[in-house]
């Protein structure tokens, strides 16, 4: 993916850029909002990673608002030291697609970047998702593996659907909490892990090849080949 990173903190910028490049992306880095806006408007990017607060009169929110009024719909991920819920809402209202609070784990950032970058494919109408021999029917809301029907609860269905829509990508625990349960809160403990392992047991029972993999220090990934 071609990613524009607008971040005024040199150290954070270097760290994010290096990490994204190692993950195989092309990264352009702007140090202030004005340069960022110019680059975002004149070149085609697959994703913008913006600091919420930027020097130079154009902050992250202004930048996105300006782009959106120009009809530019490149996905935007905000990075911010402002953790307040109002700030988050402001960022998303302005046209941001996701919001990550500093300090963050790089794995979290990478997972969200890849999820955002692949969004157009998600929007394509699909009635059936398939990973290896696992099949999920969105219309009849049934799950089968190797032709055998698996009994699954509604929430587990949504969990699996989210994982399968991002098959081959890392999905973090907070992403699952936000997207599958639709809450923004600190669960204190590993509640998500419990749900995922329960789902995993149902899917893998009687099969020798696990589908849901735990990615160390990051989250989960559903993937066909080992």
């Amino acid at each position, binding site marked *: 993916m071609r990613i524009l990173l607008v971040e005024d903190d040199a150290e954070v910028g270097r760290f994010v850029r290096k990490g994204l490049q190692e993950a195989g992306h092309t990264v352009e880095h702007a140090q202030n909002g004005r340069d960022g806006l110019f680059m975002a408007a004149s070149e085609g990017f697959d994703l913008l990673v913006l600091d919420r607060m930027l020097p130079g009169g154009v902050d992250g929110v202004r930048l996105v608002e300006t782009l959106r009024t120009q009809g530019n719909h490149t996905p935007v991920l905000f990075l911010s030291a402002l953790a307040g819920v109002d700030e988050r809402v402001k960022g998303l209202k302005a046209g941001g697609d996701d919001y990550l609070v500093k300090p963050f784990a790089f794995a979290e950032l990478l997972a969200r970047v890849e999820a955002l970058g692949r969004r157009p494919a998600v929007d394509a109408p699909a009635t059936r998702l398939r990973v290896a021999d696992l099949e999920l029917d969105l219309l009849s809301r049934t799950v089968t593996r190797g032709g055998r029907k698996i009994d699954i609860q509604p929430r587990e269905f949504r969990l699996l659907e989210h994982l399968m829509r991002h098959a081959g990508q890392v999905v973090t625990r907070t992403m699952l909490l936000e997207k599958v*349960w639709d809450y923004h809160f*600190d669960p204190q*403990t590993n*509640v998500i892990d419990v749900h995922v392992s329960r789902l995993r047991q149902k899917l893998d029972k009687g099969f020798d090849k696990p589908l849901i993999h735990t990615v160390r220090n990051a989250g989960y990934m559903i993937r066909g080949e080992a």
Partner: protein
Amino acid sequence: MPHSRLRRQHPGPVWRLFSSAGFRFAALFAAVFLLAALAFGSVLWWGTAGALERQTDAAIRADVHALTDRWRDGGAPSVAEAIEERLAVDAEGQTLYLLQDADGARQAGNLAELPRRDGNSAWHSVTLSHEDGPPGEGRLMVVELPDGGRLGVGREVGEKQQLRDLLTEGLAWATGAALVCAIIGAWLMRRALERRLAAASGTAAQIAGGDLSPRVPLSPHDDEFDRLGASMNTMLDRIAQLMDGVRGVSDAIAHDLRHPIARARNGLEEALLDEANDPAALRSAIERGITDLDNVSRVFQAVLRIAEVEHGARRAAFAPLDLALLLADAAELYGASAEAHGQVLETEWPESLPLVGDRDLLLQVLANLLDNAVKFSPPGAVIRVSAAQEEDAVLVRVADQGPGLSVPDRARVGERFFRADAARTTPGSGLGLSLVRAVVQMHGGALWFADAGGPPDHPGLAVLLRLPVSAGTEKPAA
């Protein structure tokens, strides 16, 4: 401060009088009083002068009738004679007559001319000019006689002028008296106000000086000033409480964050100094360091969130919601955890529990309570979550089968970083219930604890929340 500078530019006593609220109140009073006096005077004026006028008019009308009757009987000479007779007995010189023939020549009477015809009205109010005295005012009725002549009958009405002068004089005196009263009243009122406000402003000055402990002394009157003082005191209590809270947080942060920070630092330093330099050991040291730092930032996040909630900044996110759905979500999320711990989660609530609140924060509350319940209950325990609709509130109860909480500890739960001794060995920041308490307070609700009804050595803890349905005004914390 611009205010005090402005005041110093006008230090005169007159300025001080005019700028005082007491003076303005008194001036308002005086104005109202003056207005009332004016209205009263006017009514008096119209009443007395009007009555005189009516009397005069009646007399004139009777005279005119008598004279026109005479004209019908005896003609103009008879009327002229009657006029002469009437004038002959008018020692005060108040009567006015004039009889003119068809040519306008004077036949009898003491007027030189009659006023011009003025519309259809027979009545005229005229100014009388005397050759040997000041002009006076008169009322005059003029009638046309059948032979084309005119008859004017009138009275001089000097009393009205006198009455007017008297009333004017009286009103002037009243105005003066009201003004004097207003000024004296202003002075008295200002003094009274100043004296009553001295307590409050003195306290405020002491607090501005840095000492937060004084409170406004209250008089037994329980009047407006005492109510102002009482609300100032409530405000000061709240401020003091918040200040204590801030102080408590900084102490607690210093205490609770020092350990993970020190641990992370020591681990990294040790890995750096390690002679063997085994890459695997180095890697695990770094990972431990990152975990420690993540914990530090989690605690930070929680502290900031509590501060945010206590500031009420999140009230913007209030919206109508169904607590039953939130309870179901929370039970579903944590039911799996309970199951993993070998515990059973029992639930009971009505189909719908509508209230106004912040969805994410309320779920956070339920999550913290359920997390605690799961953490502190032994395997095999039953955790009960129930909710019921009360008249204008929803009562939520989360009961576990853990060690319970001693009564003195219950009072301290909710202080930041407080952890009962029994909880020292379990993981947690000690912030969970602080956040619960802050969120409940923000929703105008109440939080309290009870025994869950287990055996005496293991009573279990029941946490009870009462959330008002319409998220009323935030009650100040007691």
